[in-house]
C-alpha cells in the first residue's frame, strides 16, 4: 500500500513540497535579515516601540525594508486550502472518474483498509507540509508580532495551530466532495469555496465570541488631538470595537458623537477638552493578548471537528458499498 500511495500521489506531494520549500527558503532568508534588526531578539522590543529608542529605530527599518513582505503574506491565507484540497480532491474522485476504484477494491486489500491507509498518509502529508510552512511563517512574523501583536487577522490566521486545522478541513471537504461528485476538479472547487466561506464566517462572526470580550473605559484626556488617542487596550490585544460613552457609561451613537463634535466646533473649543469637560469617556471592547492560545485552540478544535465529521462521512460512504 505504501508504494501504491506514493506512486499515485507523488506528483501532488512533490509539487506542494517544492512550493513549500521554495517559499520557506525565501522567508527564512528575508526573516533572518529582519531578525537581525533586533539585536536582542524581537520579543524584547514588544510593546516598547514608543519607549525604547533602539527598538523604535528597529521597527522603523523593519517597516521600511520588509513592510512589503508582510503585505504579501496575505496571499498565504490560501496555503492551507491549496495543500489540503490538492491532496484530498483526487483521493477518491480520481479513482471514481477513471473507474479504477473497481480495480483497487477488488484486490486483497479490503476497501476500508485501503481508505484508512490513504487518508492517514495524505492527511499526514497535509499536516507535515502545512505545519512546516506555518512554523517558518510564525518565526518570520516574530518581529512584526512584537510590533502589532499576533491577534490581528494577518497574524492569527497564519500562525500557531490554526493553519494546520484549516488544511485538514480543506482536505476533508475535498475528499468528501470528491466521493460525492466523483470528479477531482469540481471537488477542488467545492473545497476552495467552502474554505473561503467557512474561514471568513468563522473569523468574522464566531471568533470574537469564543470568550466574553473585556471592556475598558477611561475619560477623554483634556490634551492631545483626537487622532492621537492613546491605546486603551494594549497594542497586542484584539480590539473588536472602539467608541465613546457619556459620563454614565452609556455608549454614544455615531450621530450623537457627531453632534458633540459639531457643538465643539461651534463653541470654537478643542474637541478633546470639550469632551473631557462633559465627562465623555472612551471605551474599547477587546480580547486581551494572553487569550491568543485559548482562541487558537478553540478555532483549531472547531475546524478539526468539522474535518473529522467530513472524513467520517467519506468512510461511511465507502463502507456502505453504494458508490
Amino acid at each position, binding site marked *: *500500500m505504501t*508504494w*501504491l500511495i506514493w*506512486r*499515485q500521489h507523488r506528483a501532488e506531494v512533490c509539487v506542494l513540497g517544492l512550493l513549500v520549500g521554495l517559499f520557506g527558503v525565501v522567508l527564512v532568508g528575508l526573516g533572518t535579515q529582519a531578525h537581525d534588526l533586533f539585536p536582542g531578539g524581537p520579543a524584547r522590543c514588544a510593546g516598547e516601540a514608543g519607549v525604547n529608542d533602539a527598538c523604535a529605530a528597529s521597527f522603523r527599518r523593519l517597516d521600511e525594508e520588509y513592510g512589503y513582505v508582510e503585505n504579501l503574506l496575505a496571499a498565504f491565507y490560501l496555503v492551507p486550502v491549496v495543500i489540503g484540497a490538492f491532496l484530498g480532491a483526487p483521493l477518491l474522485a480520481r479513482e471514481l472518474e*477513471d*473507474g*479504477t*476504484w*473497481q*480495480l*483497487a*477494491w*477488488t*484486490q*486483497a*486489500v*479490503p476497501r476500508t483498509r485501503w481508505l484508512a491507509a490513504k487518508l492517514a498518509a495524505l492527511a499526514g502529508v497535509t499536516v507535515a507540509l502545512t505545519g512546516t510552512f506555518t512554523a517558518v511563517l510564525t518565526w518570520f512574523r516574530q518581529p512584526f508580532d512584537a510590533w502589532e501583536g499576533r491577534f490581528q487577522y494577518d497574524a492569527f490566521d497564519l500562525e500557531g495551530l490554526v493553519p494546520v486545522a484549516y488544511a485538514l478541513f480543506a482536505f476533508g471537504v475535498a475528499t468528501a466532495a470528491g466521493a460525492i461528485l466523483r470528479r477531482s476538479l469540481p471537488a477542488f472547487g467545492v473545497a476552495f469555496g467552502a474554505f473561503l466561506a467557512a474561514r471568513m464566517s468563522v473569523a468574522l462572526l464566531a471568533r470574537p465570541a469564543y470568550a466574553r470580550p473585556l471592556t475598558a473605559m477611561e475619560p477623554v484626556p483634556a490634551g492631545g488631538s483626537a487622532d492621537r488617542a492613546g491605546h486603551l487596550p494594549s497594542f497586542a490585544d484584539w480590539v473588536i470595537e472602539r467608541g465613546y460613552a457619556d459620563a454614565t457609561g452609556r455608549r454614544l451613537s455615531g450621530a450623537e458623537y457627531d453632534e458633540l463634535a459639531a457643538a465643539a466646533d461651534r463653541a470654537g473649543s478643542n474637541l478633546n477638552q470639550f469632551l473631557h469637560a462633559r465627562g465623555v469617556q472612551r471605551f474599547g471592547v477587546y480580547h486581551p493578548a494572553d487569550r491568543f492560545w485559548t482562541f487558537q485552540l478553540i478555532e483549531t478544535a472547531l475546524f478539526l471537528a468539522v474535518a473529522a465529521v467530513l472524513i467520517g462521512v467519506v468512510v461511511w460512504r465507502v463502507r*456502505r*458499498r*453504494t*458508490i
Partner: protein
Amino acid sequence: MTATGFALRTDGVGKRYRKGWALRDCTLDLPAGGVIALVGPNGAGKTTLLRLVVGLLAPSTGTVEVLGHDVADSTPQTLSRVGFLAQDHPLYRRFTVAEMLRFGRSCNLRFDQELAERRLAKRGIPLDRRAGTLSGGQQAQVALALALAKRPDLLVLDEPVASLDPLARHEFMQVLMGAVAEDGVTVLFSSHVVHELERVCDHLVVLDQGRVTLTGDIDTLLAEHRLLVGPRTTHDLDRSAAVVEAVHSDRHTTLLVRDGGLPAAPGWQARPVALEDLVLAYLRRSSEPSATVPSGVAA
C-alpha cells in the same frame, strides 16, 4: 479449488438505486468449474449483479455468497479468491505496465508475477510502456493478466470484449479460455452479444429488466427446448407454461417449447433450437409476457 459446490449463490438479491430497482429478486445457484455467461440487453442489470458478486456494491435485499462466503464480510482471504475485470478494463493510466504488476503484487496475498510477465511477453506488450498509451486490446490483456496473476478461483468479467475489435476480441477469449483449461478457474462473464456463446460457455443466465428470466446448464437447456413448426394456428389458442414463444407467419406457426422432448402432435415438426434463438426468445418474452399457445400442440 472445488469442482463441486457453488461458485455463486444469490438469494432474493435486489439492488435499488435512487432511480429505481436495477435488480430484483435474483436467486441463482451457479456451480463451480466451467464458464458462466450472463446475458442480457443493455441496462438489464448485468453490471449491477457482477458488482454485487465481487462486493463492490452491497445488495439492498437478499444475500450474495461467493465460493461459500458471504460477500458482505469480505476479508483479504476471500477477496484474493475472486478476480474482477471491470467494464472497459480500467488501469492506472499513468502507471507503466511493470508498475501495474507491482500494484497487483503489493495489494494481493498471492500474485504470480512470473505468470503475468510471461502472458504479457507472449502478447508483445512491453513492461515499460505507460498503460494509458496501450491499445484497447493491449489494455484488456494487461487487465486480464493482472486478474489471472491473483490465481483466483472465480474470475468475474464485465463485458470483457465489448469494446474490442474482432481480432483483439478473439485473442482475449483465447487467453481467457486457455486459463480456464490450465487453471480450472471458474469464469463468470457478462455479454450483451449472444453470438458465439455456445462454443465458449457451459452455463447460462439470462437477465432482463433486472430479473432472471432463464438460467441453467446450456446443454440441458438446449435438450429441454425445441422448435415446433406446424400449420398456422390463430384460433383455439390456450396458455401453456411450456410455450416460450409463438411466431406466426402467413402459413406456419413456429413455437418454442420447453417440454423436454415429448412427441409432437400430428402435423407438427420438431427441430432443435440454437442457443442464440433461445436467448432472444426469452428476452422477447420478458418484454411482452403473455404468450398464447394452440391447445393440443404442446403438452
